[in-house]
């Protein structure tokens, strides 16, 4: 009896492998093999100038030496993370606020459906189109400048894209606008999953809505917050089209808005598989370190 049941469990469990197969096969072909070839390429001199192909010649760690010979690479990493944070901080704050409002039983806001639908809409505009609109709005002679000068806030036009802080802030703001709706939806779905009886009990105990939010909602929301954080961080490291189009690929001013992927794109211009590969490996190591940190964080929560 016990034996036959065991067999049955085993025969069910083989389905685990079967169901995993499509993922693993696809992943191996389209991600793992490219990852290995990318790493392999990073040890070669391999690029094209005009119609002339140079390499592939094995050059060991030469590409890495060159990559780290200037502090530029760290600057681009810093740019990427700063612009990500400039978007993510307001994004998570507003999303938490909106999520709390939408799910609050005592507020009972009307027109929720409308607002919930609207906040996701900016995500539908492609980043490139969004950048074009921003470019026009914030141009030196653009409407924002004429409004600010007209209202007496500025005495002369301020060229937003010529100054590091304002250029980065624009990129951050655009990322914030495009993604806060998405984040709100995810957080809201987490909040709706919290058992209402917990809130009721808290209200009976006389907890204020602030207390409920910080003592109950936030801790219970941790798994989904981690999910949001992780996916946003990944998206942040991949940041490309917003700053690319806003600065016509230059990363101006003085490359302070140049992200790692924009830099990678520069190497794609000369089909430079060697340098591009080395840069990719760097990006891989950075993400690996960040992922270890994030998952340490997740695990410590699970123990608790």
């Amino acid at each position: 009896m016990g034996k036959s049941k065991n067999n049955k469990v085993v025969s069910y469990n083989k389905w685990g492998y079967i169901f995993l197969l499509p993922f693993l096969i696809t992943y191996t072909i389209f991600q793992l093999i490219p990852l290995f070839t990318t790493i392999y390429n990073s040890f070669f001199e391999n690029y094209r100038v005009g119609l002339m192909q140079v390499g592939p010649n094995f050059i060991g760690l030469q590409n890495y030496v060159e990559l780290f010979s200037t502090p530029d690479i760290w600057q681009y990493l810093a740019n990427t993370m700063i612009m990500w944070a400039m978007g993510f901080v307001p994004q998570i704050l507003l999303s938490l606020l909106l999520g709390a409002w939408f799910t609050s039983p005592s507020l009972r806001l009307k027109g929720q459906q409308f607002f919930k639908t609207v906040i996701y809409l900016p995500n539908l505009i492609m980043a490139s189109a969004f950048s074009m609109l921003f470019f026009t709005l914030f141009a030196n002679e653009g409407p924002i400048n004429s409004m600010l000068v007209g209202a007496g806030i500025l005495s002369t036009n301020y060229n937003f894209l010529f100054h590091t802080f304002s250029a980065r802030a624009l990129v951050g703001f655009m990322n914030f606008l495009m993604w806060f709706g998405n984040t709100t939806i995810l957080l809201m779905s987490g909040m709706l999953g919290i058992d209402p009886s917990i809130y009721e009990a808290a209200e009976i105990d006389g907890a204020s809505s602030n207390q409920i939010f910080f003592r109950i909602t936030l801790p219970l929301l941790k798994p989904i917050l981690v999910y949001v954080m992780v996916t946003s961080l990944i998206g942040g490291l991949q940041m490309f089209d917003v700053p690319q189009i806003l600065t016509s690929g230059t990363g101006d001013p003085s490359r302070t808005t140049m992200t790692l992927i924009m830099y990678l794109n520069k190497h794609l211009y000369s089909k430079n598989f060697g340098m591009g590969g080395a840069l990719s490996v760097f990006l891989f190591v950075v993400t690996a370190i960040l992922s270890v940190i994030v998952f340490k964080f997740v695990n410590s929560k699970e123990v608790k």
Partner: protein
Amino acid sequence: MGNKSETQMNQSRRIVCYVVLVLVSIMCLFWFYLLFINATRSNSELSRGFTPFFSTHGLENWNNLVHGTLPILNGLWNSFFIAITTSVLTVYFSTMTAYAIHAYDFVGKKTIFAFILGVMMIPTQVTVLGFLQLIGKMGLDDSFIPLIIPGIAAPIVFFYMKQYMESTLSMSLIEAARIDGAGEFFIFNSIVFPLMKPAIAVQAIFSFVTSWNNYFTPSLVLHTDTKKTLPILIAQLRAADWLKFDMGQVYMMIAFSIAPVIVVYLFMSRNIVGGVSLGGVKE
């Protein structure tokens, strides 16, 4: 007495909420307004700067766009085809992968789970060079396959599905189906998959939009004009020479590219913002 002040407080909180929500909504909708206005303006009107009013050149821009050299209807179809197939493959196989981890016990499960969470962090761009070489060797350059099939392995969507299953999918339901003699594949397709509907709706629209707006990979893979997707065609239109350069057309093209995805979104939005309840806790 206390009750009354509390309702008053709620009343004032509600007013604050509405004010903020209206402001946020304006901030979200403004861009669409701007886009559609710009789509009705001529190139020289556009170069004169911003106005808040609709102009009269919408039809002209549309005609120029349709009769230009860019195959925009092909682009629309290509974008649709790629986005729909990608999102269908993504949600279906991510759910399947999540189910494999969630419902079965097998040797190496923990390792595989950790592996997928680990690879989730690798940005696509990291492997793009190797990816391009690979598809070149496979003869898949200038084809839709390298844009669609990789959707099967979407670690981020998998992660979400796994979280969702943990809070909502009860194993007893599956056991019951097994006792009734249902096959595992059948159980997944006709019991598990439908139960995941809210999560699927969210991830389907997210991956549809991501694919629809994706420029980076398609621009590296697709070369033939009639195979290109809308974001690539927009980039081409923007790159037109001074002889043909027409921002009016560019904005019309953007409006044209966004309209379908708005329709799809509005159609699915009830599912997204309504029924989603991803449980943070299970009792």
